[in-house]
């Protein structure tokens, strides 16, 4: 596996587009939360009596940042989409096999990015949660409720798995990006609203929504959550199911198809 990671590093280290897309996905985490924390601190100054615990105070900050970041999970899909579809555009996926990779190793090389981008999102989120919590919060550092960061991580991994599956199936960069954007920004939301309205809470079990259900915004989320929603463990279970299913489909596709 180390050999595969080294080869992937050789492929991307001087690929500017990848680094720009990655920088965008990473930079939006501190940027959005800095703005959030700044606004939050102004509200707190004026309404200290109403809200004894601010959303950017420990331990609430873990949930706040996980919730804010969950609106931007799709961004981490773009560098992955570009890396995978590039292989098909340049037919280098064929050359990698010709030169001696097993097809399994080609899939593993892209699963490395799937995991690495998710871990990066988690790391950056936790790092800035600590920084912003210490800078803006009035409470001491605490890891209580940091499980929300794990939910966020799983939601990023679901987004990345959707991106990976679309890229492996569609192969063309433009179409893959359009489909990914359409699904993450529109199609699933429409399905969720429609199913919730006509069928029920099962609409909340769709891939990205399952993560959203686990990441309500603190305080406000409790007010709008419906009473008959599933237990958190159901949504959590569904996230694992979606990840396993999509990775299975990626392997099945890439091990059997003509390159």
């Amino acid at each position: 596996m180390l050999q595969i990671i080294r080869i992937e590093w050789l492929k991307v280290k001087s690929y500017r587009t990848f680094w720009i897309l990655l920088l965008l996905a990473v930079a939006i985490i501190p940027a959005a939360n800095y703005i959030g924390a700044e606004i939050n601190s102004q509200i707190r100054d004026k309404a200290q009596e109403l809200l004894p615990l601010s959303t950017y105070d420990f331990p609430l900050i873990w949930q706040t940042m996980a919730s804010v970041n969950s609106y931007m999970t799709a961004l981490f899909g773009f560098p992955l989409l570009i890396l995978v579809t590039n292989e098909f555009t340049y037919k280098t996926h064929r050359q990698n096999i010709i030169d001696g990779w097993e097809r399994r190793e080609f899939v593993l090389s892209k699963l490395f990015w799937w995991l690495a981008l998710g871990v990066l999102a988690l790391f950056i989120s936790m790092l800035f949660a600590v920084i912003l919590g210490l800078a803006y919060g009035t409470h001491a550092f605490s890891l209580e409720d940091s499980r929300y960061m794990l939910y966020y991580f799983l939601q990023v991994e679901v987004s990345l798995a959707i991106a990976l599956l679309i890229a492996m199936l569609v192969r063309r960069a433009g179409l893959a990006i359009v489909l990914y954007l359409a699904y993450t920004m529109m199609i699933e939301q429409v399905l969720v609203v429609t199913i919730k309205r006509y069928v029920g809470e099962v609409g909340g079990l769709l891939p990205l929504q399952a993560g959203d259900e686990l990441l309500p915004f603190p305080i406000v989320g409790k007010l709008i959550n419906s009473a008959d929603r599933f237990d958190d463990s159901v949504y959590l279970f569904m996230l694992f199911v979606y990840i396993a299913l999509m990775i299975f489909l990626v392997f099945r596709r890439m091990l059997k198809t003509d390159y």
Partner: protein
Amino acid sequence: MQMCKCGASSMHLHICTSAHQKIKSVSVLSLHNISKRYGAIQALSGVSFEVPPGSVFGILGPNGSGKTTLLGIVTDVLKADEGTYRLFDAQPAGHLRRQIGTLLETPNFYHYLTAYQNLQVAAAIKQKPEQDISRVLEIAGLTARQHSRFKTYSLGMKQRLAIASALLGDPGVLILDEPTNGLDPAGIAEVRQLVLRLAETGKTIILASHLLDEVEKVCSHVAILQKGKLLLSGPVNEVLAREDYVELSGPDNTVLEGVLVRHPAFSHILGRNGHLQVVFSQPVDLAALNAYCAEQGVWLNHLHIRKQSLERAFLQLTNN
């Protein structure tokens, strides 16, 4: 029983990881009844042949005859519908493909990387030392442009880079699919010389081409494909045997033809294009043939021995 330099005894092939990597005794590649269909098109139909070690094995056929599909299957980028193949008498696997330098169809490289960076990726996958990159770039004549991005390369330079990549690690076996594609006449001659030089060092070379003279000039063995079917395979001299024929004319070629068919060594008439083109079953002495015709009352005004063109031999073969 032979002893390999690395110490292993071999009646059968073993892949030796030491420097010499000499392939012994068994076929480098064997195909058994390979078939492949793309929708309504039968790209390959029950193809079987073996590539002996040390041979320069040409896969000859017109465009669309299935050459690239065949090589795609043996490099695992395509899946055969039926049939099996073996590399070095073993189940195909990535570590066996690493022992083969392959150029398949078009050069496939990362456009945003330089030539050197692309070869770094290839060397890492092939598990060959990076120190070899400068050697292969020198062979391909790309040293001066090694730090230019691949997307700035001309078609000929891309093809040279693909050849350089195939040569990484000095593999014992090379698969070259139309290696002279996109090259200018000087480049074509260079690549042919390179293939011959590599063949002289004992490497096995599998060369797909639609160019007859390319195959005749460099190959020791050939397999001929047409519409996905294997017509013939074997040593070039046997498969592409070309008949000598005698070209003659007299005052009346109809009378002359009547005389020639009675010649004891007469085989068949190849053509009647102004002159009669006659094939004899054994070599004939032109002076004796002239005398024979004169004895029969026909005085020849044209008599010449010629070799059948390669194209004609090929067309004869494929028409049958």
